[in-house]
């Protein structure tokens, strides 16, 4: 399964690209690309399952990924942020190279902690897990490093992607009902967040989340 390993590494790499980005558009594009990679992986796995024991679930998941994550959500996000936000994010807590370095550190840390946690021997499962957990935490870290609302939404989506990586690569897919449920939640969450971004923009005339500091203590 060389190709699967390659895909999992590519997905991880796309995270680094994401962290290195500054533009709202490229956040969305990178996310789109990452979702596409995920969809490819799902497709391969789905074909295998379909030919193997005639199970169609993963192909269905693949379809969902393509429609939602590759097509609908990026479109929704572009649409939302087209009107409300700057195109380029300028203010960072730390500069980009440092952020990339931290992301590397996260990946390395995950690699060691996961592999030692599941027995210490390098296995395929360990690699997939380490990669997917890294995706999740780099996505998480991306949320922390970006001040704008878009960064937080994309970060959350990347985390979800990471979880799908884990589900697909390491476990060969979840029960389909669960997958569908997760997608419904995901799309609802993105829509709600989109609505809230509008409201925040209305109230504060910016989507800089770092300015939401009224509630303290």
């Amino acid at each position, binding site marked *: 399964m060389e190709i699967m390993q390659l895909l999992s590494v590519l997905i991880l790499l796309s995270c680094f690209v994401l962290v290195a980005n500054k533009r709202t558009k490229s956040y969305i594009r990178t996310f789109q690309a990452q979702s596409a990679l995920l969809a490819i992986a799902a497709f391969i796995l789905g074909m295998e399952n379909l030919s193997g024991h005639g199970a169609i679930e993963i192909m269905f998941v693949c379809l969902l990924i393509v429609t939602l994550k590759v097509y609908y959500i990026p479109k929704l996000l572009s649409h939302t942020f087209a009107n409300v936000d700057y195109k380029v994010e300028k203010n960072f807590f730390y500069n980009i190279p440092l952020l990339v370095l931290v992301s590397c550190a996260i990946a390395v840390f995950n690699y060691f902690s*996961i592999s030692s*946690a*599941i*027995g210490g021997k390098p296995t395929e*499962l360990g690699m997939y*897990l380490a990669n997917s*957990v890294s995706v*999740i935490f780099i996505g*998480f870290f991306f*949320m922390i490093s970006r001040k704008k*609302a878009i960064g*937080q939404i994309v970060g*959350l989506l990347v*985390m*979800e992607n*990471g*979880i799908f990586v*884990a*589900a697909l690569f*390491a*476990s*060969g897919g*979840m*029960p389909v*009902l*669960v997958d569908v*449920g*997760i997608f*419904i*939640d995901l799309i*609802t*969450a993105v829509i*709600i*967040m989109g609505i*809230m971004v509008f*409201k*925040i923009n209305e*109230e*504060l005339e910016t989507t800089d*989340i770092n300015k*939401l500091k*009224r*509630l303290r*203590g």
Partner: protein
Amino acid sequence: MISYLLLLPLVSIVAFWLAKRASQIFALGIAAALIMLSAGVKLSIDVAALGHVNKRYLMNFYVDSLSIIVLDLVLAVSLFVIIYCAGYFKKELERGKTDIKRLRLFYSLLFAFMFSMILLLTTPNMGIMWIAIEATTLASVFLVGFENNKRSLEASWKYIIICSVGIAIALLGIILLHISSIGIIKDAGTDLSWTYLYEHAKELDVNLLRLAFIFMLVGFGTKAGLAPMHTWLPDAHSQAPSPVSAMLSGVLLNNAMYGIMRGLAILNKAMGSGSFAGAALMALGLLSILTAAVFILTQRDYKRLLAYSSIEHMGIIALGLGVFTPASVLASLMHMINHSFTKSMLFLSAGNIYQRYGSKDIYKVKGLYKSMPITGVVFMLGIFAITGMPPFSIFSSELGMVVALFKNGSYFAGAAFLFLLALVFVGFAVTLFKIFYGNAKGEQQKSLKPSPYADIVLVAMLGVITVTGVFMPDGVLKLLTDAQRIVTGG
């Protein structure tokens, strides 16, 4: 019975949008909640008799003693809150703070919120459970932001982001749980089924399971408001309308703890000892109590203060789960029940106070006994109840907790627990007691007397926490011990 529970909220949501007048919405809400509670009670009688109830509609539904306790709590507290809402929103409508459309929205979201919690508690599938938990966040985020101002917007943004992140981490945990079971799943229908996993816990891959539990602990812990993932909680609880705060604190947090309990049961059975998870849970529990104690000490906003107190009580429950002896888990379960009633009562009283005084600042509220005798007395006794004074119910579970801690040899934890409880009490005393005395200033308007609905609810809840403080029916005890056995095994 499960079908009633699942369908009724959905039907009511439709009905709310058909209703013409506010009073219809109120009546409908109360009726639905009443029916649901009676269904819940019927279900618990079945569960007490049979051990568990298994149904299959579209997917498997499964209710055992553990989930029925939390479920009944959801239904009972919701009933109180919905009755209270009738009085609360009548006032809000009179003052023009809201209109019928927003009222419909509120009720629909409230019932959607309830639906997701009922789903959460009736499914055996960990994946569906996760979906339901995420759905609770999504359903309640607009409820938190219902007042639609800058502060509530900020609170709801923090609420959705932090909880979603947390829940995402929990999902990773559930997936790891799934991965750990790949080798042993024989038939397709049992994927991620808790009962199956629990039965075969010994065969699961322990290394993965540990990792899974950690992610679930952090994830569900975020939702449960355990420090240091609690940060959304004071904001959301203080900005939400008081009935929603009561639901969040009294009900939602329990559901997240329920998730932790399910994960914990599997892990500890697989590992054969509770020490790995125990240390983590106790650390988080004590940290939560400490955080609450420190933050309460100089708090000026009474709703935030109550919110921190919820963090404290979630910490106590976590502490009990961490000790993981039958006695401590039983105490945790009891504490969950007692805290739900007491805290939602306090939030509802706080709602009355807020409606009357228009401020959440402790320094702007004075002379509560004189201006609102019933609310004032209930609130005062509620404070004593929440800080663990007999004869109220929280005392009994805290007593159980302390004994369990010392019995287990956790002297440090026991001592720290008592010290922090005392500190919390000091915090309540120095911050909150002053609102009861003195004379209220001129702003008390006659029209703003709390409605009889609100007073009835408060008095009834005070009755509940007093009676449960000194008496427990046999059936409840049986359910509790069964639930405790489910968690601890054996």
